[in-house]
């Protein structure tokens, strides 16, 4: 059995086990959930470390496992990793573990909550590992439905019902539109299989007609785009995250949301190269909507969760920009931000959840001076905010700067606008939020607040550490991503040859890492 099956399987197995545990055994329920996600996270770290040494199959995937499922349609359970999803699986498993730890704040109907949380985690990890078009969709849908139930049942605030309604409507519609695109892709490829490597192989030999590509690509772009809150289909995201219980927001904003982006990179770009080039400009302009418009909206927020939600929508713009650049550097950067933003979003929503649990409000004008009472949480929030505006040293910086370098070549005007959004707008709302929440006089009513104890510190510390590790040693990830990003780009420019960075050289900062990415464009 592949280690990937185990990473996704442990949470699902634990969910099944929880069904039979009586609901008043609260400690056992928590322990099972935390243990299962911990095992899955440890296995993911092991997988990430073993990645370089593991043998790759003919198509370049590692840890592969394949079991036929429906022969007549060519569906099989097929998992494997390459550079595009190895980081995502690691990030997903760590975020799931952190979310399980943060779920201690859930007080009512814990059993159902943990079951849904484990389904979410296991499902999405399976979707990222899947190399079969059907399972790729199936497992994401499996992970998505619990989100709606969790927001509808454990959500907070007056707008709970409206937010649940909106997020269900948007995300189901997005997923189904993408499904139509995927089915059309399956039929048009003519390979008569849902196996992604085989379809890619087949399409290389006999490309899909430009006409069909131009029907399928928008279906995938907007279907996946809705799932990723592409402007102007983003309005579900800030409100949904503001209302969601924080573990749900952590997993959804951190992990599930990356599914659409991953789908675009893994499926749409290599299989529909002609249409991707035609639509890249549309995508580039829409991503400006994300970066500038939503950044501007974020500046106007008074609620911390709405601010984080909007800023997370804005960050998606950088990833879209990387995808739209259609070159190795841009796509590598996009994948890097996907991983970095997963940690960051989970960290931010986890921290805001802690503050909400302590104070009962996230209105920034009611908060203030919290750093005195909550030194750990306050510092972590400060770091999260700094990572969010792209401070070097955090993983987000590496990804964003790589995207800008990549996009500069093809989309200079849009890159300038995006830089403005990334550096200035992000800086304004993040520092303002920090000033309002953490500094200034402490209102008397918050004198009783207590800082996180050891168990509650663990998830935040873990997420921060991950941001640091990838910020300081980006090569851990970039050297895995680059060859596979180059493979995708090769369908646009067959002459792209990528030189592996010289082995043994230490890369300490991002720009050096990028210089090492010697792209020879003959």
């Amino acid at each position, binding site marked *: 059995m592949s280690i990937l099956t185990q990473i996704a399987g442990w949470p699902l197995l634990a969910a099944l086990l929880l069904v039979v545990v009586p609901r008043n055994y609260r400690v056992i329920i928590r322990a099972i959930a935390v243990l299962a996600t911990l095992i899955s996270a440890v296995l993911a770290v092991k997988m990430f470390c073993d990645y370089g040494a593991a043998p790759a199959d003919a198509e370049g995937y590692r840890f592969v496992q394949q079991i036929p499922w429906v022969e007549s349609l060519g569906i099989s359970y097929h998992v494997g990793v390459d550079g595009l999803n190895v980081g995502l699986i690691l990030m997903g498993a760590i975020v799931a573990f952190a979310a399980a730890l943060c779920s201690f704040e859930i007080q009512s109907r814990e059993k159902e909550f943990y079951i849904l949380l484990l389904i979410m985690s296991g499902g999405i990890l399976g979707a990222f590992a899947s190399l079969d078009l059907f399972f790729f969709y199936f497992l994401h849908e499996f992970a998505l439905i619990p989100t709606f139930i969790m927001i509808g049942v454990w959500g907070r605030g007056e707008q709970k019902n409206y937010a649940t309604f909106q997020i269900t*409507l948007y995300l189901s519609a997005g997923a189904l539109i993408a499904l139509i695109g995927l089915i059309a892709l399956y039929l048009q490829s003519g390979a008569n299989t849902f196996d992604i490597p085989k379809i890619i192989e087949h399409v290389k030999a006999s490309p899909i007609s430009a006409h069909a590509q131009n029907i399928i690509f928008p279906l995938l772009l907007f279907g996946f785009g809705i799932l990723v809150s592409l402007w102007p289909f983003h309005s579900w995201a800030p409100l949904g995250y503001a209302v969601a219980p924080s573990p749900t927001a952590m997993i959804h904003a951190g992990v599930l949301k990356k599914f659409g982006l991953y789908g675009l990179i893994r499926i749409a770009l290599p299989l529909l190269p002609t249409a991707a080039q035609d639509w890249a400009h549309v995508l580039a302009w829409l991503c400006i909507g994300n970066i500038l418009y939503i950044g501007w909206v974020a500046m106007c927020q008074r609620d911390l969760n709405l601010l984080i939600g909007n800023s997370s929508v804005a960050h998606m713009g950088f990833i879209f920009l990387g995808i739209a650049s259609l070159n190795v550097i841009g796509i590598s950067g996009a994948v890097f931000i996907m991983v970095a933003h997963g940690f960051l979003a989970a960290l931010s929503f986890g921290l805001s959840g802690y503050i909400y649990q302590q104070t009962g409000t996230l209105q920034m004008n009611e908060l203030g001076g919290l750093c005195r009472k909550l030194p750990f949480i306050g510092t972590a929030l400060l770091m999260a905010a700094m990572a969010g505006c792209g401070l070097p040293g955090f993983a987000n910086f590496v990804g964003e700067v790589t995207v800008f370098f990549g996009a500069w070549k093809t989309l200079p005007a849009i890159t300038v606008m995006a830089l403005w959004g990334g550096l200035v707008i992000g800086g304004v709302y993040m520092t303002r939020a920090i000033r309002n929440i953490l500094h200034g006089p402490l209102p008397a009513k918050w004198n009783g607040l207590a800082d996180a104890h050891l168990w509650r510190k663990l998830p935040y510390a873990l997420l921060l550490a991950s941001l640091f590790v990838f910020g300081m040693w980006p090569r851990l990830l970039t050297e895995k991503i680059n060859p596979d990003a180059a493979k995708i780009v090769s369908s646009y420019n067959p002459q792209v040859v990528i030189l592996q960075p010289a082995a043994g050289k230490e890369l300490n900062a991002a720009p050096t890492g990028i210089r090492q990415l010697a792209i020879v464009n003959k």
Partner: protein
Amino acid sequence: MNTSLINLEMCVIGLGLVLMLADLFVAPERRRFIAYIAILALGFLLAVSFSGNGSCSIAGTAFHGEFINDGLSLFFKRFFLVAAILVLFIAAEFSDRIVAAAEYYSLIIFALAGMLFAASSNDFAMLFVSIELITITFYVLVSFQRGKLTSLEAGVKYLILGALSSAFMIFGIALIWGTTGTLNFTELAAIAPQFVDSKIFLLGVLLLLVGLGFKIAAFPFQIWAPDVYQGAPTPTTAFLAVGSKAAGFVLLLRVLFTAVPAVTVRWSTLLIIISGITILYGNLCALPQRNLKRIFGYSSIAHAGYLLLGIAALNASGQAAILYYLAGYLFTVLAGFLVIALVLRHLETEDIAGLSGLNERSPLLAATMAISMASLAGIPPLAGFFGKFLLLKAVVEAAQIPGNHCYYYLVFVALAGVVISFYYYLGVIRAMYWSREATDLSPIKLSAPAMVTAWICIAGMFWIGIFPNTLLNMANAAVTALKI
């Protein structure tokens, strides 16, 4: 003439007669055992059909080609036997609320016989007789709770609209016979291309579709469904939702794809429109409903629309998808009606609020209902998800043919329907697990057979959703009998 082909049907009719007589010898308080005897007998017939020795496994025609046994009829006969067995389980739980329970069971068996004949009809005469056998039995089954006004009202509504649709159908058959001179599907298929421009012939086919549209509750003949579903005794509603609808679909498949394929290919636009409107109508009307059986009524309209997607696609994968979807629908809907029959038996209304707190009262029933709703909504990994996937795939496949772009519109209508349906299906789940208005929290005692039924339905929904291979191969083999 090979009369041994109808041994299965004869056995079923004989069983119905025996059950009627058994009523005379069994004490009233033991009537539910009559149902168990019937279940055992049908289970035996089902086992025989799977052993390959039964009459339904022998391919061939009988009665001058009126009766045909092929892959399609075999699939549907097994389907109807499973449906009848599960409905009898529900009916056994219901026996304390109806007088003359044995008659009720034997009527179910007679309706089953009608469905078995429908699966094999290869001739308009056979089609009409089997439809009438089903419909007339259902008139009685719907109004069986004589003391209940809603049941009688439902019976009258079903009778009037059913009679009307039968009249249309017989008129259509008469027109077809008048123009072509044959009632046999095989003969008709050979000569139908000559008549595709004859307005009278086309009107005949159209009127026939009216009759079948009534059976499957497709727009614009769906108006009876919610009222009848609500008023009828729950086991009747369950059988109506599964058996009667499937009988309508097997006849629709036979007529459209073996008798008049020449007409069908020209009517793709009509089928697309009917399918789209049926999906939207069912899902939109279900939104404001509070009565569970009415929700099922509207949802059954919506599902008729989804199933029509497979017909409108006009390809083999669409037909196989219909068979697959119906099999999943069988377990899903019967799971839902089982819970309704058990939980709401002491309540006057079937309001959703009656389900509140069900999770505390009976976790098994709450889980059964939740899984059923999730499967109807098409949530993985349940039967409904893979079924919908196959149907959508068939329609997208049809859309790939150049010039067929209107299929994409149909796909988007279907998607809209699925998204809308999340609202009311998840609303039911919410009522069971998270409603705060629960008043009655007394535990529900389940009889052993009821628990078995619940587990069969749950297993069926998961099996069809997680291991689609076997069933899909069966469905693919079954539709090779069809011509398009």
